[in-house]
């Protein structure tokens, strides 16, 4: 009996340190660091979309974000400035953390002065023609997946995420590397049913802004056909005190210039 107890004791001691990681707490803090820095934030962003033939497209926009609650509901406005045919187009999202409630989305088309309510739709479709999905930009709710720790390096934890609802997504599972130091997800590899890694999202450049670890450059790659999109952020600031009324239909037609420049 005592030998058996000792054996269990030894087994516990010899387990790799991964078992000590509280995965639940890790993904919650990772989600907060990745999508909820400060109470609000603004950033200029631009994307270069490169297709498999090497043809390039550019998108430039400014994002304003306001959290209703950390790891909870968020408000977002995206003001496009380039290219010419999307200039002054504005995208508005009321994100609901409850995955049973669809996000509310609107698009303002300046040439028609039209505010178009957009039906919820698949969040894993291209964000304005890029290789990023809407969900990459607004954040995939961590409650959508089951996480388990599969590996660990000196810098990162590597988690395997399996969707709770496999029918709703194109991937079978993904591996996410979370920086031990910053808790930012730095690389996500998506695998299909055949176990092929067909898509990668990675943080290429990270810096500390107002004390918040912040991704300045990220890249998403289509590993099958070779297309990719680069996204770069500039003029980032947090805790601006963005008022609630910035995130409204008013701002679609009359952009709140005070917060955009």
């Amino acid at each position, binding site marked *: 009996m005592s030998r058996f107890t000792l054996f269990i004791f030894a087994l516990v001691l010899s387990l790799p340190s991964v078992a000590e990681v509280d995965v639940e707490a890790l993904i919650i803090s990772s989600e907060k660091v990745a999508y909820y820095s400060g109470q609000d934030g603004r950033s200029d962003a631009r994307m270069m979309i490169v297709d498999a033939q090497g043809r390039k497209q550019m998108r430039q926009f400014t994002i304003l974000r306001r959290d209703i609650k950390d790891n909870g509901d968020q408000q977002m406005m995206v003001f496009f400035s380039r290219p010419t045919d999307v200039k002054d187009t504005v995208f508005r999202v009321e994100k609901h953390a409850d995955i049973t409630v*669809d996000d509310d989305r609107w698009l303002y088309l300046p040439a028609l*002065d039209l505010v178009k309510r957009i039906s919820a739709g698949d969040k894993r479709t291209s964000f304005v023609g890029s290789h990023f999905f809407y969900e990459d930009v607004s954040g995939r709710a961590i409650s959508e997946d089951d996480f388990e720790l599969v590996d660990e390096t000196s810098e990162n934890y590597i988690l395997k995420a399996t969707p709770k609802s496999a029918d709703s997504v194109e991937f079978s599972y993904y591996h996410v590397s979370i920086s031990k130091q910053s808790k930012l997800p730095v690389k996500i590899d998506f695998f299909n049913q055949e176990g092929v890694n067909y898509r990668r999202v990675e943080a290429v450049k990270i810096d500390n802004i107002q004390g918040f670890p912040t991704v300045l450059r990220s890249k998403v790659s289509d590993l099958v056909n070779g297309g990719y999109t680069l996204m770069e952020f500039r003029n980032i600031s947090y805790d601006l005190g963005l008022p609630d009324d910035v995130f409204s239909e008013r701002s679609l037609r009359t952009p709140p210039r005070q917060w955009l420049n």
Partner: protein
Amino acid sequence: MKKSLSPISVLAMILLLVSLNTRAQTTEDEWDMGDWSEEEEASPLFAGFVDISVGNRFTSDPAIDGAKTLRDIRLQVQWEKLLSESSLTVTSDLYYDGVLDQVKLNVREFAWQGRLDSIAQWGKNFDLKLGQQVLTWGTGDYLFLNDLFPKDYQSFFAGRNDDYLKAPSLSAKLSGFFDWGNMDFVITPEFAADNYINGDYFSFFSASFGTNIAPGFDVKSPYLPESPEYALRYYKSIGSSEIAIYGYDGFHKSPSSLTSEGQAYFSKLNVYGASVVSPAFAGLIKAEFAYYASKDDSQGSEPLIPNDQSRYLVGYEQEVIKDLTASIQWYLEHTHDYSELKLNSLTPEYDPNRSRIVVTQQFIYRLMQQTLTINAFNFYSTSDHDGFLKLRADYSPVDQWQVAAGINLFYGDDNHTFYNQFEDASNLYASFKYFY
């Protein structure tokens, strides 16, 4: 507005402007995406595009010579000046219309827009937009109930980009934003008619002649309305739903009334309505109602003036599979005092039904990383047994250019019904657009 410039000089101007505005582009490494536009604002340049569009009708139209339905060489110039609390925007099209062999200037926007904070404390809740502008509200797709702002049906039928479905007006729009809801109040001092089908490009059915005619007419003073148009909207979000109430005081937007001498004119019209949009099931549901009070014929007994109508719309939209959005709309136009209309009608065989019902179906499919968009929109009237099918493909694999092609097909049984009167307007078109 018509100017006497030759098409050659327009083309030369376009090429000159484009070459002036072209910037050299170099790429060193993959993260070098060129200048951020904020850095370019020091030297404000204009932006815009050149567009060449060609369209022909499928069959000849006995009422109109020639097969051409669309021949545009177009330069759009956009210019914006940001002031401290406001902005000045100009969007103007100069184009050669090869169907009419005319050079035209279409100022789509020339407006000052700003918040009124700077004027007074009460101003913080108000925005004002003054000048030539495009205005839109309401919930329908291609069906307008409470939106009485001018439309350009000639462009819609010819296959110009959807941006041209709305025509600009010289208006003042005051918007107020409050806890109890938001208000828009629009005054258009000089009546802005639709760009209605007048025979310039497409013929239309005339009940008096019993056949299609193409007079190419414009209504001129003294038959133009002399009072301003007023439009009002109240709207509010309640949870994820949006409700709105509308009012309009003005005139029928096309000259659908005739004086006793047979002169077409725009008779008085008031419109009252409401709408709601809400998420439902996996998509969006919408409903809209409008009451059209035809003030010059409130009893319905004037045969040359439209009767009062109630208009209803119910619609549903959903993404059915990834990148494919489908929508359906059911629309009813109910003519009031129908027995009076029948009693007084001069051309009873061509009278519309008491209830005109239109069902629309739309599919929008985005393919190839959203560089290709296929849009199919069908209007079908179950009461008139006629319809209008719009099919369009847009392809733009780079930022610099877009190509588009499509058909507009009118079909039906009778030659006088709403859509089928345009059967000979059915056309095929293509366009190329280059952004400079």
